Each structure stands twice: as C-alpha cells, then as structure tokens.
C-alpha cells in the first residue's frame, strides 16, 4: 500500500484555501483586505444581473421563414418530434418575364415545442436552406407548459436576435457562414 501522500494532501489543502481567498479578496493593492466575494466568485446572481451567453450558446432555435421550403428534413430528423410543419402549394410569379409561374410551398404552420426540445441542434445542422439558426436568448420560460409551443411568428422574432457567426480560429480554410438577413 502506498501510504497517505502527506505533501500532496497539504498541497490540496493549499489549493482549496487559495481559491477561497481569491474568491473572498479579489481586489488588488490596498483594497485587498476588504472582502468582496461578489466580485471574486464566478456566480452570476441571475435575476439581479443577467448572464452573458458564451459564443455559439444554444439558447433558442429561430426560424428565417423566407428561406424555409417546407422540405420537412428538420421535422423528420428531430429525435423527439417536436417540430410541426404544415404547408400548401401556391404559385409564385415567374423569375423572368414571360416565364411560367413557379410552384412553391407556402408555410402555414411551423411550430417548435420547447417542452419537448432537447436542444440537440440536429434541425439546425440538417437544414439545407439556411432557415434555422441558434439564438443565444434564454429567457422564455412560461407558467403554462402549452405556452412553450412557439409558432412561426415567435420563431421569426427569435431570428432577429441571432448574432453573426464568429470567425474561425486562425489558419482555418473554411469560410465563415453568413446569417441571411
């Protein structure tokens, strides 16, 4: 049996004590002696101060309705079937004068049930038309569970909060995607 490693144990005590001291006395200089744990701790006192989401935070899924073709890929790939899509066919004006009117899908309903969603992001990954995006917003809890069903209008409002994609790390050859606005 390897005996208890006393120097290592003392070091461990030092680590925890050091962290406590850094949390309690985060200030430098003469102000060091004044305890200010609210500054030293990593905790965000949420209702009083709001959290700054990390880059690429998965807060809520937003819909850019113009780009959606009702292809149903997202609804079919969704692991817990929380996306509901209904559409009907309509005729759009021809691209060029004298051409034939185009048959397009017009969205009647695009709902995401956030009481079911597990935030896997597969729908965002799978969408080939740049219609679904992550937004970092997170304040959408509800009193009643049925209010967590966000319709396409609400999902469209979330789209306005989508930030630009961040640059990749230096030397990356992939181009940074653009959010269609």
């Amino acid at each position, binding site marked *: 049996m390897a005996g208890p490693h006393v120097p290592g144990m003392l070091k461990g005590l030092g680590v925890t*004590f050091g962290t406590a001291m850094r949390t309690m006395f985060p200030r430098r200089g003469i102000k060091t002696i004044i305890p200010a744990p609210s500054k030293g*701790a990593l905790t965000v006192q949420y209702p009083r101060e709001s959290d700054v989401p990390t880059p690429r935070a998965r807060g809520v899924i937003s819909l850019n309705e113009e780009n959606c073709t009702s292809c149903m890929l997202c609804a079919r790939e969704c692991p817990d079937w929380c996306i509901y899509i209904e559409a009907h066919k309509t005729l759009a004006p021809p691209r060029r004068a004298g051409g034939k009117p185009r048959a397009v899908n017009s969205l009647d309903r695009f709902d995401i049930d956030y009481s079911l969603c597990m935030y896997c992001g597969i729908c965002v990954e799978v969408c080939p038309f740049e219609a679904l995006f992550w937004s970092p917003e997170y304040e959408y809890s509800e009193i009643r569970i049925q209010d967590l069903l966000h319709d396409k209008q609400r999902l469209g409002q979330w789209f306005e909060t989508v930030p630009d994609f961040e640059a990749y790390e230096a030397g990356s050859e992939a181009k940074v995607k653009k959010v269609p606005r």
Partner: protein
Amino acid sequence: MTHMLALDLAYWQQTIIRVLLGLVAVLLLTGGVVYLYLFKFVSFMQSRLGPMEAGPYGSMQLLAEVGKWLQKEDVFTENSDRLIFGLAPAIVLTSTFLMFVVIPAGPNAVIADLGTGIYYVLAVSSLSVVGILMAGWASANKYALMGGLRAAGQLIAYELPLVLAVVGVVIQAGSLNLQQIVAAQSTGEMFGFGGIGSPYVITQFIGFMIFIIAVQAELTQTPFDMPIAESELVAGYQVEYTGIRFLVYFISEFATAVAFAAVASTLFLGGWALPASWGISRDAMHWIGPLVIATKAVLLVGVVFWVRFSFPRFREDQLQRLAWKVLIPLALANIALTAVFKVVF
C-alpha cells in the same frame, strides 16, 4: 457569575439558567458554524457565492431551511420498527448535547464541573454510535443497515486514537478535570518560558494531530464519510429519515463538530483562559472566556470543514488501516514519550 450580579439563586434556578444559556450558546454556535463554513467558506473554495437571497448575504438561510424541514411529512417505512426508528435521532442529539455539559467557557461558566470531565466527554460522545446503529437497523433498509454497520465500525475504530491522544494531555496536566487542564495550560511554562502559558498543541503536537484526525472520523466528515457515502449507500443510516428527524441529525452533526472543536481547544489550545502571565483579572475572564473558547472552537471547526471539502473519500479498508496501523501505534508511542518526559523533567 451569580455573585457578580449580587443574586442569590436556588440550585434549581441556577441549573435552569445554565441549561438555557448553554442551549442558546450551542445552537447559536452551531448555526453560525453552518452559515460560516458549510454555506459560505465552502462556496468560496469553489468560486461560488453560496446562499445570497434569504437575509443579507443569505444569513437567514438556515432559518429558511429549518422551516422547510419542519413542514415536511414525517415518513415511516412499512417495515420499520417505529419506536426505535423514532428514538434513534433523539439519542444521537442527546449524546451531542451531553458533551457540552462539562466544557468550561469561563471560571464559573460550566454546567457541571465534573472531576473526570474529559473521561465523561469521551464516554458520552461514543453514545451516538448506539443511536446510529438503531437508525440503521430500524429503517428496514439494506443501505441504512450497511451505513449503520460502517458507522459503528468506524466510530469504534476512531474512538481509540481519540482516547489515546487525550491520555498524553491528561498525563501532562495531571488531571482529568477540564478546568484544571485549562489552568495547567494557562499557568504552565515551556522550558522556563511562560509568555504564552503552555498550550498543549505545542508539546502534544502529535496528540493534537491524532485527535483532529480522529475527530474528523468521529464526525463522519468527508475523508471518512463512508457511513453516509452518497455514491454508494445513498445516505447510509439517514436514508429513510425525513423532516424534523432528519433535521435532528443535521443539527447533531454540526453541534457535535462544535463540541469536539471546543473539547480540542480546551485540551490543546488553552480553553477559555488566556496565559496567566498576561495578568488579566478573573472577573474580566468571566466575560472574555466564552469569547475566547468560542473563537478557538469556531476556527477549529473551520479546519474540519476545510479538510472535508478538500479531499475525496477513503475506502473502507483504508480507513480501518489508518486507524489501527498508523494512529493507534503513534498515539501509544506519544503516551510513552509523554510519560517519560513527565518523569524526567
């Protein structure tokens, strides 16, 4: 204190006042320790803030928690032995409160100044094993039973180094009475130097370390918390307890921590007394004494919690090995050495 207030109280009146003051002091200290360490210091160790909402800086959090526990349903399992199950927390709490009876907090501030005080403390503190075994057995739950058995094995194993570590102090002070041990540290001198008295933490350093380690195990705090190991035994013997009965376990856990810390500071850090060479009058010590021992005890409880939240749990066999193969031989060697020094010098 009574002669200072020029009161002539009957014995029963004095007893009631002492018991009430003692209860208030114990509960205040326990609550303070829980807030200071369990809520705050541990949070700071983990870069958290701890409770902040109930009262300024979360200082009323404990009251909120007590209120929550009091509301909860008092659940008995179907097969539990209701009488024993209900009695077990009471026994554990009684054992805790009985420990405070002999701990002196001033020249007169002691509920009962027994001639064999330290012997009484160690005897009464091991009473809690009975309560824990009762809880483990009466819960009719395999996890509770295993937790109870582990607790019994652990508490009995660490009772020995605890007692043996104290023997060194008793030899050096020449008394089992806690007041006399305090007096011996206050008036004593080390190798002719009496400036800080003779706190036994210096001369009995090995005994002090053994005592603190054994206390950590007696309190079943983390490096030694197999009886309630949450990842193996859910919560050990506490698993079936809810509401007020769980609250009693909670209080007794932290009150015992305060009690052992107070005993340790009495035995090793000089107790309520300041060094006699400082020349503070006995009348002043009536008021300073309780503050001195409370400060020492709270700081020692801080060490217990510091260790608790720094280290992971030992394995059951490592725990027993540490007690029987390391601590007890060390404590015996310490006793022999102390006895030799006592005779020689």
